[in-house]
């Protein structure tokens, strides 16, 4: 071996130094190049009173959220509500007052009785301002074009559920999907640990031919489960807790949560072969539920608390176009929409709208707290509702089949949720059957419950 010369040694040393510096620089650039979206200078929280009772006083409350002040005090906020009687016509401006307590929103206005009790309801939007930065926000983002719409519960069917008897859940009619945890063809992907909790397939849907389609985002695939077997389609998804819906034309929509690389929520639409059709950022900050309306996918979003279309007839809508078409209810193929409002801890208000008019409504009260509404869908003369009821250490789903006269069928479903899924993606209604996504330590399953009164 030849003895190295001084030039070789110097060159080698210089090379290592340059290499380390270059490597650090490259890694730093790579690490720093992350999300580019920014937290807005001002944000808002508002829970709209979408369904009101006769004579009920209405106070509109807003939280104005801004950059933290160095003195630790809340925003120096202000704003106005633009409100009108009914669902069309000019708005009148009412200034928001600043209250002492922020638990339900520090900024508020009591609606004049003549507006709050107007027979056709009222509609409104707000502009909110942070005095520190001068930034403003309109809520909902659609403003006058797509305001919050509130309608009165007129002649609502009253349903009193009483105290829920836990432990009497109905057995399913059939287990249509059963998959062990894993990554093989008939498995379901599982992510996490005992210490951090587990995430399984986050959503599912039921195709027109009755096959069950599971979003196995952990394994980056969509599985079609039918009586003849399981077919998997690879899709490029982030792996986060996403919602999922099948469109009638075969497109597969995946509603992705924010993540470390994409801090804004995105809806991705895939062809049936798994190739991407389009991806579109949502108008709002947060999403609750994905569904398919008459013209394409719609998403219930916050802070607007509206259902916003994200695409129409196969073409994605920009954020402003989404916001400009916000509606209070989930749209359905029959042209109607269903409005849901959980009030307090144990009251649920539901209404079916045609345009901005209520055609049927229900007010459900319970002696046991009511949690999230998983599903509220019309079927002929009925409305099928799945909501969770809970105590501090137990929970179950209650399934209600409602007619104008009240409850025509009801039963409980045990909540088997060992692995986490998307928040409002546990149930799907297809034909006269209800499907439920569940999990245990052994794996994932989908059960079918036949609703006899709908047959």
């Amino acid at each position, binding site marked *: 071996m030849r003895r190295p010369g001084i030039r070789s040694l110097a060159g080698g040393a210089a090379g290592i130094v340059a290499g380390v510096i*270059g490597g650090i620089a490259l890694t730093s650039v790579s690490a720093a190049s*992350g999300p580019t979206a920014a937290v807005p200078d001002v944000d808002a929280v508002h829970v709209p009173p979408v369904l009101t009772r006769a004579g009920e006083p209405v106070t509109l409350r807003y939280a104005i*959220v801004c950059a933290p002040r160095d003195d630790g005090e809340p925003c120096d906020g202000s704003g106005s509500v633009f409100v009108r009687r009914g669902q069309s016509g000019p708005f009148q401006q009412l200034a928001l007052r600043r209250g002492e307590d922020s638990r339900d929103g520090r900024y508020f206005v009591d609606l004049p009785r003549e507006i709050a009790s107007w027979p056709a309801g009222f509609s409104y939007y707000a502009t909110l301002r942070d005095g520190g930065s001068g930034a403003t926000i309109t809520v909902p983002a659609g403003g006058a074009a797509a305001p919050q719409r509130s309608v009165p519960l007129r002649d609502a069917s009253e349903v009193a559920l009483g105290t829920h008897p836990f432990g009497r859940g109905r057995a399913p009619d059939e287990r249509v999907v059963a998959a062990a945890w894993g990554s093989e063809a008939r498995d379901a992907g599982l992510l996490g640990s005992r210490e*951090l909790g587990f995430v399984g397939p986050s959503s599912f849907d039921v195709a027109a031919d009755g096959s069950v389609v599971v979003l196995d985002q952990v394994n980056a695939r969509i599985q079609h489960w039918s009586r003849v077997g399981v077919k998997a389609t690879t899709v490029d998804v982030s792996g986060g807790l996403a919602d999922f819906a099948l469109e009638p034309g075969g497109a597969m929509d995946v509603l992705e949560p924010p993540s470390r690389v994409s801090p804004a929520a995105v809806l991705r639409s895939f062809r049936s072969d798994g190739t991407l059709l389009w991806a579109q950022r949502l108008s709002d900050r947060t999403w609750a539920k994905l569904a398919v309306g008459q013209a394409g996918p719609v998403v219930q979003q916050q802070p607007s608390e509206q259902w916003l279309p994200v695409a129409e007839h196969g073409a994605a809508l920009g954020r402003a176009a989404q916001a400009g078409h916000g509606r209070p209810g989930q749209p359905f193929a029959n042209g109607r929409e269903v409005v849901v409002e959980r009030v307090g801890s144990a009251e649920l208000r539901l209404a079916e709208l045609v345009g901005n008019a209520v055609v049927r409504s229900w007010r459900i009260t319970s002696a046991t707290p009511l949690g999230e509404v998983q599903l509220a869908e019309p079927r002929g003369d009925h409305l099928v509702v799945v909501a969770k009821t809970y105590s501090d250490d137990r929970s179950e789903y209650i399934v209600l089949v409602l007619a104008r006269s009240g409850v025509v069928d009801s039963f409980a479903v045990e909540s088997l949720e060992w692995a986490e899924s998307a928040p409002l993606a546990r149930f799907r209604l297809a034909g006269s059957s209800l499907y439920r996504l569940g999990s245990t330590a052994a794996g994932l399953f989908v059960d079918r419950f036949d609703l006899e009164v709908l047959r």
Partner: protein
Amino acid sequence: MKAFLVAFAVGVVLAGAAGAQAYHRFWANCNYDAPTFMTTMTRDAAQDYANAARYEGYQWGGGCWNYDDSDSYPYDAPGDPSAHGEGGDCSGLTFKTWRESTDDWRDGRYYWRALRNVHGPYTAGDFRNGLGAPNHVVAKATAGVMDAFASPTHIGMVFARSLWGGDQIVEAKCEACGTNIFYRTYRSDPSYGGVARWGWTG
């Protein structure tokens, strides 16, 4: 020149493989300043504080971030406190948002700036059990804005309630999730309990 090129390549490999510069880097920006003792603590100021931590990442055992709307180290190894990346974890974010003391017997209000590197003494399970003088357990049905839901492994704060009965939760849940606001159904999940901070002033 050949020796330089070979050594340059070795240097690049060393820089990347050791990861020495990747680890301990973000915490080099953090400080250990004393918190500001406060007489006030409002729920909307807490919303401001937690909301501003969005996009700033997640670090297991962490509690230090800036306000550049980006996780400086989004691919740290999950569950590795020695990664020293940007962001809080779930209990660190809650501790700082709730202006708590590192002494669990103190129930005063201590304002920690974002770059102050502090996680606090509580795990998610500790919060769930109401441990520490400033904390207590509440019925889930009554949990309101900037109260929280905690399981043995996670805690998230109620940013707002929502029409369909779930909650908008501000949380630092995992390395891949970052810190953000998500719609969750912890309220009705038996593995979660309701917890709250004493001492809100508005």
